[in-house]
Every structure is written in C-alpha cells, then in structure tokens.
C-alpha cells in the first residue's frame, strides 16, 4: 500500500504543487479585497464548487488512467489485496487534495487570525476541513464515475448535490459532508475490484449503490419536470410569465401594488364600514411592511445567512459580529486596527442571537444604525459607541423588520404585527410597550406580504399568504384583512381564497414521482439542521388524486419490477427484495433495477458448439 501511495504521489506531486501555489495566490488576492471569513452562502458555494470540481477532475484522471484493461491488470495483478491498492491510490489522492486545497486555505485562515484584526473563530477555522471534505467527495464521485458501470456511475454526484442542498450549519454541516464522504468512499471501494463494472455482489453493497442511484433517477425525474416547465414557459402559458396572470389567482395578487391588494382584500368585506374603508384606502398611504430579516442566522454557521457587518462613517470604524463573543468587534476604517467591542448597553452584554444591521430609522443621528437580534431592535449610538434596545417583541418571537408609519412604528415579527408609538422611541433606555398587537392569521413561511393602512379609528392590516403556494408545502393561497380599532381589538374584515394558478399534479410532482424518495430527500436535506422558524407553513393534506396517481405508479413499478427482476441475473432473495423495493419506492427503484442488476446472459446456442480439440 505504501509503495502504491508513494508511486501515485510521485505522479501528481508537481501538478499539486502548481495547483497549491495558484490557489494560494488567488486566495491571497481575494483576501486583500474582502474578508473571506465573512461571506454569504453563494460565495461559499462558488468556492465549494471549485473544490468539488478539483476533486472530480483528480478522481477522473487518476482512475481514468488506471481503468484501461491492461493498466488495470498491471495495477491489481500483484500480491496485494485490492483494498490495500485502493487505499494507496485514495491515500495519494487525499494527500494531493490536502496539499492543493487545504494547506493554502489553512494558510489564509492563519494569516487572517494572526496577521489581521479580522475575526477568526471556530466557524472560520473549520472551513479548510469543509473544503477538504467537499474536495474528497468530488474526488470519490469522479473515481466512482470511472470505476462503476457507466450506466449508473454518475450516481455519485447525488451525494455532492446533497452537500449543496443540506440545511445543516456549522460543525453539523461538516458532519453531513463527512457522511457523504464516507458513503462515496464505500461506493468506490465496492467498485474497486478486478472485474470492473460488474454489479455489486453483497446485499449491503447493493444497498449502498442502489440508494444514490435511485435518488439520481428521482432527481432526473424532477429535472425532466423542470424541462417540461421550461417548455411551458416558452409556450407563454406559465402563470409566472403570462403578461396578464390568471384572474383571481395568487400570481395576480403578488403582482398587485399594496393599494390594489388592500382594495382587493376588502372586496368581500361585509362590514357596514367596508365602503368607508375602501374610500380611505384610496386616499391614504398603504404601507407595505418592510422585512429586514429574511432568514435567521444560526450561531456558528459556516456562511453568513444575513449581513453581520456595518460601517460607522462618523467614527471611521467597521463593525463585524462575532459568533464566538456574540458582540460586534470593531476595526478602524482608516488603519485596520482593532477598535473595541460592542455589546448591549453600558455593560457590553452579549446579544442573545446573531445580530444583523437593519438600516436606519427616521430621527436617528448621523452614524447611528439599527440592529436586529432575536426579538429586539437595537439602536447603535455612534457618538456614545453604545447599543441600546429600542423595540422588543415577546420572547419566542423573531423580530423581522420595522416600518415607520407617521408617528408610529410598525414592527413585523414571525407571529404578529405590532404598532409602537414612535414619538419617544429613541429616548430612554427601555423599549416602549406596543400600542397594538395583531397576530398573524397564518404561518410565517406562507406570508408573502403585509400591508397596513392607518384609519381614523385604527388600522386595516392585510396579510397575503402566497409565499409557497406554488409548492406542495405552502398553504392554499389566501388573503385576510383585519381591522384594529383604537382600543386594540382585532376584528376580521374579510378572508378570501385566491385561485391556485398551478395545477395540482405540478405542485406535487416531487411527491407522486416517489413518496419514499421525497421523504428521503427531505430527511437528508434536514439532517442535523436547525429548525427554521421562518420556514413553517400550513402544509395542506395531499389530495386524493395525487395519492391515487402515486399508488398507480407504485403498483405499475411493482408489476414491471417483479417481471424484470425475475429475468435478471440475481438470487431469489435479491429478486424478491428488488420487487418489493419497486413497489415501495416506485419508478426510481424500477429504473435502478434496470441499471444495476445485469441481464441474465442467455444460454449459448447449441448449434455453434466448438469442435473438440485434437
């Protein structure tokens, strides 16, 4: 094994050295321009994709040069077990990625930590490990692509896709990447044997191969649906692309202005005041409530889910939120020197959630800024270099945004809308008690927009729940208008269901294509992931027609799968298991069976028997 490892390392060492130097230079260049430790997910995805492609290319080249028949015999026909030979090759590949990907990245992290005042914490320190795991996953996927039967050898890419869509954050993301890496390693070891391209032999090997293959088939089915959607768009009848969306539908509601939406919401109002409200809406300002926080950051996350940096031009300082200290750390804009720490109040107390700058409010001094963290809106006082709480919603709720409305401030949380008296908002040390609280009549994940109109005797608040109506996870689209009187009583004014613009079978494609694979996908994406409080939706029950379609497909898969399995070269238990799998998983298992289990080779025709040798 050691000899194979050394031989492979010798083979790639110059290329790896060149890659490492190039990688280091690119990182150093970008690190001069931006703080690479504080980047959003799309930047991380770009880097991850580069590392994954690096791994894929290495795996493809390494195994591609060995897998030619004579090379393969030369490699494996020696008194060394195939597993040990594989370990030598993979070890060399892993060390190559370590040298080419991890070392330059670790050098940059070390430079950040000890050569700059930038924040380097656990979430930045583990980035090289994440890069290594992603590159290794790519390497294994590339290697598997050439070692396994070409009919399903691309299935390893599914595990890379898993990393890309997984919701896990911080060290938990590393755990997901490590799991994907181990799975891919197992696939490579299963495929790494003298008789390349043959079907896996043991039940465990079959399962390890079949799950990604079936998931790949499932993803291809969804991709086919996406291609169909593109054709739909080209036809010009896709609801999102029609010049005039379907009347009464949720796409139409989403395209309305706030005023139009409020008027549409009042259309079904039966209150005696409805006619008056309609007149007032036409004449008054309709405020769409701003939402400065679109997603909630998780402490220790690898990517910045939300912005965590802001500049104070008055004091010439730059503030970056530290996940480790749960406070902002300052650096001078002019000299880059450390400029202190920023917590809450005079005691510099740590924030209880990841804090994000949220712009400015009317009346705050130049250089001041607002910050949202958890259930509280804070004001950063530039002159005093302090952070003081200004508005709070009850514990357990997430403050998402604020909108000035005349002399008041509307505050949107994930559960309610609050109206706060703005006159003394920026005075004092303690947040004022809201004048009104309007519970949101739905789930935060469904809420598309909220409008508010100030009346003579209160407020009209409109909630439109269409955010995920085009998917099977969103509530059926609807709009609700509430009236809040001066005493704070909330009275429903009108609720009307909006038409579904997308056909049922379109919305449930991911489910009826294979309910089991859908569940597996959801579980995989959510593995080790924190609960997203903003993602909760009122999931409607699956319609009977969709269930019937899934059942028919499963039954068809069961019948065809049984017929196919009995004609394939496998044992009786394997055939039974495949048949059962086709019935449970559906089309992905059926296609998996066709791809993985080889045809039974027919008996040679007796008429072409060899003539006995003399």
């Amino acid at each position, binding site marked *: 094994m050691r000899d194979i490892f050394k031989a492979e390392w010798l083979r790639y060492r110059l290329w790896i050295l060149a890659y490492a130097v190039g990688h280091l230079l690119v990182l150093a260049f970008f690190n001069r321009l931006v703080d690479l430790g504080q980047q959003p997910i799309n930047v991380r995805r770009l880097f991850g994709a580069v590392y994954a492609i690096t791994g894929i290319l290495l795996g493809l080249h390494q195994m591609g040069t060995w897998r030619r028949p004579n090379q393969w015999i030369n490699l494996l026909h020696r008194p060394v077990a195939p597993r040990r030979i594989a370990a030598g090759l993979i070890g060399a590949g892993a060390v190559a990625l370590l040298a080419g990907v991890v070392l330059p990245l670790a050098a940059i992290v070390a430079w950040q930590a000890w050569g700059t005042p930038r924040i380097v914490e656990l979430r930045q320190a583990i980035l090289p490990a994440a890069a290594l795991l992603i590159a290794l996953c790519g390497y294994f996927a590339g290697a598997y692509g050439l070692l396994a039967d070409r009919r399903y050898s691309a299935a390893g890419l599914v595990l890379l896709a898993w990393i890309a869509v997984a919701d896990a954050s911080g060290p938990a993301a590393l755990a997901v990447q490590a799991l994907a890496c181990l799975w891919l390693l197992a696939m490579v070891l299963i495929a790494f044997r003298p*008789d390349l391209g043959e079907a896996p032999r043991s039940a465990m090997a079959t399962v390890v191969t079949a799950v990604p293959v079936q998931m790949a088939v499932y993803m291809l089915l969804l991709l086919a649906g996406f291609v169909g959607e593109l054709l739909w768009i080209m036809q010009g009848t896709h609801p999102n692309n029609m010049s005039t969306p379907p009347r009464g539908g949720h796409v139409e509601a989403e395209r309305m202005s706030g005023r139009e939406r409020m008027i549409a919401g009042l259309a079904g109002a039966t209150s005696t005041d409805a006619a008056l409200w309609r007149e007032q809406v036409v004449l008054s300002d309709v405020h769409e409530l701003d939402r400065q926080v679109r997603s909630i950051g998780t402490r220790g996350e690898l990517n910045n889910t939300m912005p965590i940096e802001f500049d104070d031009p008055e004091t010439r300082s730059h503030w970056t939120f530290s996940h480790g200290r749960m406070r902002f750390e300052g650096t001078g804009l002019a000299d880059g020197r450390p400029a202190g720490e920023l917590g809450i109040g005079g005691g510099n107390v740590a924030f209880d959630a990841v804090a994000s700058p949220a712009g400015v409010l009317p009346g705050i001094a130049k250089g001041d800024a607002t910050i949202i963290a958890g259930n509280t809106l804070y004001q950063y006082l530039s002159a005093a270099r302090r952070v003081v709480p200004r508005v709070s919603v009850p514990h357990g709720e997430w403050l998402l945004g604020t909108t000035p409305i005349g002399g008041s401030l509307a505050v949107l949380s994930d559960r309610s809308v609050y109206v706060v008296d703005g006159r003394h908002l920026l005075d004092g040390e303690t947040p004022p008690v809201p004048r009104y609280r309007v519970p949101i009549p739905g789930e935060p994940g469904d809420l598309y927009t909220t409008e508010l109109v100030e009346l003579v005797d209160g407020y009209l608040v409109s909630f439109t729940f269409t955010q995920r109506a085009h998917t099977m996870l969103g509530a059926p689209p609807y709009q609700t208008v509430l009236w809040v009187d001066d005493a704070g009583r909330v009275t429903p004014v009108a609720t009307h269901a909006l038409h579904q613009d997308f056909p049922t079978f379109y919305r449930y494609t991911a489910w009826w294509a294979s309910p089991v694979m859908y569940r597996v996908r959801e579980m995989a994406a959510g593995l080790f992931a924190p609960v997203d409080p903003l993602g909760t939706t009122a999931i409607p029950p699956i319609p009977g027609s969709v269930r019937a379609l899934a059942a028919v497909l499963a039954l068809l898969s069961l019948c065809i799968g049984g017929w196919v399995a009995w004609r394939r070269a496998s044992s009786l238990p394997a055939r039974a298991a495949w048949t059962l799998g086709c019935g449970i998983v559906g089309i992905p298992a059926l296609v998996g069976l066709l791809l993985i289990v080889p045809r039974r080779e027919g008996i*040679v025709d007796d008429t072409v028997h060899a003539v006995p040798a003399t």
Partner: protein
Amino acid sequence: MNETRHAGYVIETRGLTKRYGKKIAIDHLDLAIESGSIHAIVGANGAGKSTLFRVLLGFLPATSGEARILGRDSRRLTPSDRERIGFVNEEHTLQGWMTVAAVTAMQRRQYPRWSQPAFDEVIGHYNVQVGQKVSQLSRGERAGFNLALSLAQRPELLVLDEPTLGLDVVAKRAFLETLLHSNAVEGCTVIYCSHQMEEVERVADNLIIMERGALRNVSPPDDFRSRVSHWIADIPFRGPDPRTIPGLLDAQRIDGIHHYLVLDQGEEFAEFLHACGARDVHRLPVSLDRAVNSFLSKQHAAPVAA
C-alpha cells in the same frame, strides 16, 4: 468430466463461455494446460485469447463454465495466488513517471520471492539505466524491463500476451533470446500468446490454436505442421470440386498447376488426385506459419477429432 482436474494443470477450463451481449468471445472452452514447458496460444484477432486471460486472472466474469488457474477458481484469486502468476501484456504498462530503480524497488518489496539475480540476469541484456524514467525507455527496453520484473518474481506461471508486438527485429530477438536462455524461466510454465509464427515455432513446446472462442488444436507445433500438407498436382482439365476435396484448407491454381493445402491427409490423397485426373503429384512440407494461417483462414474446415 473430472479427469482433467488434478494438480498437474496450471490452467483448466470446463465449458467456459463468455459473451458480450450477443457476441460469443469464448465458446464452451475445455482447456487443460499441464505445468512445465512453453505453451503458445495462437489465433486470429477476436479469437478470444485476451478475453481468456482476463477471465483466468479474475478480471472478467465468465458467462458460464469454470476457469481455474494454478488450481484456484479464477474468481477467488488471493494475493498469494497472484504472486505465483506473472503477466506481461503487449503494452508493457508500467508507471512511466517513475524511474527504473523506483519501479524495481516497489516490485521487490511487493514480491516476497523476488530474485535479484534473475532480475540482474535479464536486465543485463538491455541497456537500461536505473536512473532512467520508464517513459524514457524505448519500447524494446520497456519490454525487457517488464520481462525482467516478471521473471524476478519467480512465478510458477508466466503469461505473455503478445509481448513482442510492435518491437523491431533486434528487440524482438533480444526478448526471445532472454526468454529462451534465462535461468529464471526454469521451473516456470510459460503461456506465450502471439501472432508471430516464427516466434512460436522457436519457443513453443505446445501449440494451442483458438478460433472464434473455441479450441481448435492442442499439440506440439511440429505435430500440427505435419498434419498440414501441400500438394501440387498437374491436372490438365478442371480440378476436382473443392467441396469434394477431403481436409481442404486452401486451393490455388498457379500457371495451370493446382496447389492444395490439406489437413490430415496421407498418401491416399495422392490417389484421390490421380483419380481426379492428375498426371503428376508432388507433396511438399509447409511452414508452421502457412499451416496455421491456412488453418485459421479456412474457418469452416474444422479438423476431425482425433
């Protein structure tokens, strides 16, 4: 059925069949090769020779039948079994980026029975420097280096799959001389696969002919050559209908004289020709090259079972 299963066979197949889809690469092959001496396997392209080696070494599963090498089921070869089997292919695939010394050191560590004298003896026939990279060696030097590595492993069975393919005359001669006169070959059974009949004639003790995946002949080369005879007949009129000529492999008419290559025909063939109107008949010996080529060319003229 079990009569061929004893310790004396280095290669043994029974009803071995390999199909690629509808194409038959090996067709119910029953082959038993005894240990010792040099066995040549010849056959046209597509005869199934390389497929046979790949099946025997466990790199390709058989469609049906059994394949055993050194007494072990080919599908269950262990690292220690592989240590006993040397294999040299026509590409002489070695790690081109490594030096001769590095490759040698790696092989020495991996093969417990490594014989440095055997390696030195064989590599001494070639102008190979230990500091050279393998990729810098000429094709002939690489072939010699590969042979030296294989023989130094002291294998019980050495499989040479067209090892002289692409070599020039000098390199080919050096390779064969090494193979024939090296002490390292002693005690080793050699399977030599080649299209070059002059090589086969020179090195082989036993000639195995394969055609379209099936076994057509197993015998010493001279025995096979003696089975093929070249008859020259002066027949003033049209010769006999080829379909009536017994054992016919090839028929030609040159300058009015009929030439027949026939298999397994004795002096009675002269009587046959005379009966067909021949005024004068001569029998000439044929080279192994011509015998094998005509045998393989005449696909449907299968030899009669002995």
